[in-house]
């Protein structure tokens, strides 16, 4: 037995030394790390494939990712005030404004980004940097339906009986419904006309689904037309689904995905290096390629042919929204939507 105990002790000692060496070796090797919240799915996979190696190569910094949707990031950061569970946010405009209201970001100094000059105007502010764009319009199946022209076509025959709708839970859903409302006399803060028009055709609408299930519902032929973004259209096309993106007559909607440093982060320096890597031309170009299908923000990247614009500057003419006005109304819109669509 004594012999056995010795081996165990030896084993533990060796293990301790080994793990100590590993830990030392690691800290001596990398110049530290940065923990970033990341959208699960396409974003996480694309960042693992392109940003992680690029950041390691350029700055010797390890990127750790915590998969979280925008709304979950805000909820987590808010729940752990002062000790954020990650250093960097990645957010859509709605949650971005909420985070700003609740003081969740460190002040941002854009001059610390080496690639700042390559971004079009308005892509940085005192709170963060834009890393990707999203363009929202109509996606439809050209084999089953004629090409729609405007947002109002969604609520008309023959399109409405094949329409897939989502509510105000997502950014793309919210801006699409606002655009439909505008065509019927509404505005950014008045979606009443949408509800009035929707009620008239509600029984015909093919499907009203969870946002995450919309691509699957389209793929399965449950609906053949829906409001969506170019990324989803490109991803579905990559899976041989018959879908085409249409820029509505009144203009496609653009919104931007931004990154921010979490208040209380201890890796501010590495967070800047991370952001700079994300907006660098090679990484942006790689993120634009299938199956990632991001819309880049770096002027040096030549835009993919399927995108509804020839240059990034054209996006200035796309429809934009003020989320500081939308956010306060969103809760009541969601409540209203629940009541209107449930039988």
């Amino acid at each position, binding site marked *: 037995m004594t012999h056995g105990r010795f081996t165990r002790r030896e084993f533990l000692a060796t293990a301790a030394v080994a793990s100590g060496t590993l830990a030392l070796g690691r800290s001596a090797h990398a110049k530290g790390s940065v923990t970033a919240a990341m959208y699960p799915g396409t974003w996480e996979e694309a960042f693992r494939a392109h940003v992680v190696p690029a950041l390691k190569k350029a700055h010797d910094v390890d990127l750790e990712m915590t998969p979280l949707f925008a709304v979950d990031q805000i909820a987590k950061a808010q729940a752990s005030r002062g000790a954020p569970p990650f250093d960097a946010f990645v957010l859509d405009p709605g949650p971005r404004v909420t985070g700003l209201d609740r003081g969740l970001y460190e002040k941002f100094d854009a001059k610390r980004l080496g690639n700042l000059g390559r971004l079009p105007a308005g892509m940085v502010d005192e709170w963060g940097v834009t890393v990707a764009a999203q363009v929202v319009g109509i996606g439809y199946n050209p084999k089953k339906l004629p090409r729609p022209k405007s947002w109002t076509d969604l609520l008309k025959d023959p399109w409405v009986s094949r329409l897939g709708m989502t509510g105000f839970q997502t950014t793309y859903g919210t801006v699409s419904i606002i655009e439909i409302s505008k065509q019927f006399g509404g505005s950014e803060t008045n979606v009443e006309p949408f509800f009035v028009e929707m009620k008239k055709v509600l029984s015909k609408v093919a499907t009203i689904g969870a946002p995450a299930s919309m691509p699957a519902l389209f793929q399965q*032929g449950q609906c053949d037309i829906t409001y969506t973004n170019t990324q989803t259209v490109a991803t579905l096309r990559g899976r041989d689904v018959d879908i085409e993106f249409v820029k509505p007559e009144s203009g496609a909607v653009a919104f931007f995905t931004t990154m921010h440093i979490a208040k209380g982060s201890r890796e501010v320096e590495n967070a800047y290096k991370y952001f700079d890597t994300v907006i660098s031309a090679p990484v942006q170009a790689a993120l634009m390629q299938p199956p990632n299908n991001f819309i880049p923000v770096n002027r040096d990247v030549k835009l993919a042919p399927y995108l509804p614009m020839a240059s990034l500057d054209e996006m200035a003419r796309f429809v934009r929204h003020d989320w500081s006005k939308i956010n306060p109304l969103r809760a009541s819109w969601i409540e209203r939507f*629940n009541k209107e669509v449930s039988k």
Partner: protein
Amino acid sequence: MRFRWAEWQLVLPLGMAYAAFFLVPLALLIAVSVFADEKITTLGLATWHKFLGDPFTWKVIFDTVKLGCLTVAATTLIAYPLALVYLGAGPRWQRVILFVVILPLLTSVVVRTFAGIVILGREGVINQTILWLGLSPAPLRLLQTEHGLVIALTQIEMPLLLLPLLSVMSRMDPSLRDASAGLGASKWRTLFRVTLPLSLPGLVAGCMLVFASCTTAFISQFVIGGNRLVYLPLLIWQQSLVVYNWPLASVAALTLLVSVGLGVAAISALGRRSRAYAV
């Protein structure tokens, strides 16, 4: 009985885990629910008033409980005959049945739910079969309907009912059924007077699990049911993670807790009553 510290020490780890990960969060949930504003600054019962004063809330509570009842009924109708087959099968077939029952548990609920879209959709397996057999001129609407959701949940929740049921049934003394037959009881009489009463504890436990699980199955409800069917978990998700109204989310969560709790208690009471009747 004398209090024996040595024995109590054994439950200490679980007790502490419960306290830390269930009781404390529950207390927090209750605390957050008594704030009147979404920034959590003013105390008051305004959130409760707003939520419970809205007739829509009561419709949602009713629909949630109804979904639970329908799923429990459908699961029982399908699971019980299967359990009887298990009871009559030899050891090898029993193993096969058990494996088939457990199989769905080995895949993630998300995968099973998205498979539901493929199976129940317009161009899904069920509709293609129905059209091929000429049973209906057009595809049936199964996705985003209550009956479609019940079909999907029945498949998803089936193991939760079958496992306790099979475990109770396999411990049943087979000579009791033989005795019943030997004394001249018909097969149906043996089923209702011997097998069913003896298997009730497993059936009741399974029904409680199914009820609690399907009324709170947010992903399945939202993906298969869509936005046309609104249940309490959807309200909780919208309020907590889309509009950040945590007091309202807490109120909805506590409402769900109470409604599911009452449903489970009702099933348990029903089980006790029918056992008394059967004996």
